[in-house]
């Protein structure tokens, strides 16, 4: 994902004036405008509206939901999804907020460190998740080899215990996405006027007080939007679970996104799969509405 943090830039503000002055489109211009937006509208109708409609239709059979709620895997999956969102998203964003402050330090070292720190974001997800999978292998993985080298004891079987396997997935998610959100918050902090900090320093504020009374209030809105967006993205995340735990051991670490795909394609029941995914709607719809409202206000764009 790429990054932008723009809010109320002066350029955008002055732009509305000439816009309002201008007359509306008419005549041949209107035809051109129509021609220009046709490709986008066509893509939207064919590949967003149609799949949504078809998906809702697939997921409208009550029998699928009866089957789903009788599936012993399903309750685990819901709990896993909630834990994944709760810990994965919040730990990640809180750490990112703190680390973005750390990277504001001056000097060559923090610049070099930031370049290295960005690696998990730059490396594609699959190699990293596969590596984490093998790294956490109970028998031959790097982590347990290190534990053996240092302490001469056997490390835990990370991916063979339901709780540790879920924790491993959450670890993988945080590892992969921490740099991205740190950069977002870093850009947010860069935009805070230094004069505010100087004024706080003149008033004798400690670093903690500066953080609590300058940084935090100014970044709260952005932090909230990031939490919602990250929750939505994590809800749809398939790769971390698929490649770190594979949903195992014994289907105990599935989340809704992976269970949906499993039900639809491995069990060959698209209706059941769609029903699985659609049970996330009570969480997804309020988030989407809140987030769209926030993004439309154009206060924060990511």
């Amino acid at each position, binding site marked *: 994902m790429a990054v932008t*943090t723009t809010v109320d830039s002066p350029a955008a503000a002055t732009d509305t004036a000439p816009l309002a002055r201008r007359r509306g489109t008419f005549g041949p211009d209107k035809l051109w405008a129509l021609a220009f*937006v046709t490709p*986008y509208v066509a893509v939207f109708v064919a590949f967003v509206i149609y799949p949504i409609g078809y998906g809702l239709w697939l997921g409208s059979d009550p029998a699928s939901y009866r089957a789903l709620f009788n599936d012993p895997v399903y309750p685990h999956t819901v709990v896993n999804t909630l834990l994944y969102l709760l810990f994965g998203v919040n730990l990640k964003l809180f750490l990112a907020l703190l680390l973005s402050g750390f990277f504001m330090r001056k000097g060559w070292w923090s610049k070099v460190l930031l370049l290295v720190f960005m690696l998990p974001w730059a490396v594609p997800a699959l*190699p990293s998740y*596969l590596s984490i999978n093998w790294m956490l292998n109970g028998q031959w993985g*790097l982590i347990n080899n290190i534990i053996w080298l240092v302490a001469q004891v056997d490390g835990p079987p990370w991916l063979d215990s339901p709780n540790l396997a879920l924790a491993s997935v959450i670890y993988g998610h945080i590892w992969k996405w921490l740099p991205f959100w740190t950069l977002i918050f870093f850009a947010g902090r860069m935009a805070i006027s230094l004069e505010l900090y100087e004024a706080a320093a003149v008033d004798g504020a400690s670093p903690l007080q500066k953080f609590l009374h300058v940084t935090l209030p100014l970044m709260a*809105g952005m932090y909230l939007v990031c939490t919602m967006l990250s929750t939505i993205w994590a809800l749809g995340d398939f790769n971390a679970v698929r490649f770190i735990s594979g949903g195992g051991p014994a289907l105990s670490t599935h989340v809704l996104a992976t269970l949906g795909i499993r039900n639809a394609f491995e069990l060959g029941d698209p209706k059941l799969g769609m029903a699985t995914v659609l049970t996330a709607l009570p969480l997804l719809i309020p988030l989407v509405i809140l987030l769209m409202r926030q993004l439309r206000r154009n206060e924060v764009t990511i």
Partner: protein
Amino acid sequence: MTVHRRNRMIGDIGAALLSVVLLVWTLLPIYNIIRVSMQDKEEVLSTSVFPVAPSTHAFSVVFRQAFWLLETFWNQMGNSFYIGIVVAFLTLAIGSLTSFTISRMRIRSGWMLTNTALLTYVIPASFLAIPFYGIMGKYGLTNNPLAVIAVEVTFATPYAIFIFQQYSASIPFELDEAARIDGASPPQIFFRIYLPLMAPALVAIGTYALLLSWNEYLYAFLLLSGGKVITVPVALGKFLVGDEAPWNYLMAAAIVYAIPPLIIYYGFRRKMSGGLTMGGVKG
């Protein structure tokens, strides 16, 4: 003064410690990829932490495609490139035309288009995978790279539209008006004024779309079932299906696959962030 100096020293030591923790945290899985890619078959199943006898054997197997799961590796790299390039081009074309119409031609239904883009942006892509699979069958696009291209363009375009709209706000409207007075038609304004001035944003979004599709697994896995059309991530995923995955080959192939995005990220970093990090938080 001494208190001040002592505080600074404590701060420096803390920063040094945190740096070490961050380096270990960041590099551990990456070290593991490199370590395993340099092991031979027996050493993969051993308790070594550092490579015992590092070799480039696994890489030579990948380069020569000398393992059955890697038989068409270069062809898969080609497929990934092809899909990425087409997605980048289409995203730029569709995104720039749409944002030009919304923000420069000021069409009345512009807000609706912006909302549809917002909606697409906040829907988790994987939730549409199941209906998408069925629909691609109806469109007759099963096992066709076009299906994956369509998905990637669909999910990359909304972000492109946002960024283009924001970026174009910095291009003075007077330029368009002057051109219009000189009798320029909308396509002329689009090609001669809008696109050249949008170059930094175009580079940034082109890279974004390319990387998005280079990294895509789920849709490529579902829509490209086999043979000559699969991309590298799909092939990497297939390694796990067997009982005894040859981890050294898998990690070597993964490194080759990860190199192009790494070059792009670190090579174009300034260009990307130049186009993409503008403005900041509201006061």
